């Protein structure tokens, strides 16, 4: 025979068990990315934060794909 005190104590344990559970859901806000912030591709030793220089370099390489300009 279980004593009423023990019964109440066990009951309390069962009831409040969920209170110790940590939330497992990812904080997702609709329309907002949850990804870590990324570095800008021009913030490095080569370009030293100069976006214009980076764009010029990429543009020159992209132009190089045009063989009409490259050959003629």
């Amino acid at each position: 025979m279980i004593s009423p005190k023990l019964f109440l104590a066990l009951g309390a344990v069962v009831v409040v068990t969920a209170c110790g559970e940590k939330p497992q859901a990812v904080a997702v806000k609709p329309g907002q990315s949850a990804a870590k912030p990324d570095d800008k591709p021009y913030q490095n030793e080569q370009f030293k934060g100069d976006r214009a220089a980076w764009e010029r370099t990429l543009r020159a390489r992209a132009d190089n794909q045009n063989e009409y300009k490259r050959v003629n």
Partner: protein
Amino acid sequence: MARMKFICDAERCIECNGCVTACKNEHDVPWGVNRRRVVTLNDGIVGAERSISVACMHCSDAPCKAVCPVNCFYTTDDGVVLHDKDLCIGCGYCFYACPFGAPQFPQAGAFGLRGKMDKCTFCAGGPEKDTSKAETEKYGRNRLAEGKLPACAEMCSTKALLAGDGDVLSDIYRERVMRRGRGGDLWGHATAYGVKASSSPAPVQPAPTQQKS
């Protein structure tokens, strides 16, 4: 700069798979994962066979981004769609949403357990310190931070696959069309970037087969 784009000129692609090899080699992509692949349509039909190099097109309104339950995708200032592998749960929703079949899933265990999604990064790495070891291991080499374009396009021998700023690519493609006198099929361009061609390209007709006498 407008935004980064890929263009595949089906009139020029010779199905050499140089782009696939370049990508695999550049990023040390594991077996079973193909960030880029070459698809051939109308295979064997004379005059109608076309090959296209396909990977993530970095869509303007990326459907993968819309369906991701953990919002791990983001678009950079230059229009490159990237994702955070630390958040990805490998659910595969992005694979079903993508019209190009770009998201790839490495096998992470027995019974076909999917690992974290892997896809073309436009050689721009991911949300780790640029050109760091962590970035290279998770996402591959960051060529954009080195002032270089994606390896697949730079390796393309016929320059069928073009990568870079959309305005520059448009100029290159326009010149090609003017010189050869006809418009090619810019496959996937409208789907990815939402730009409708002024007139839809005429369907490719197979050449008349020669009958043996």
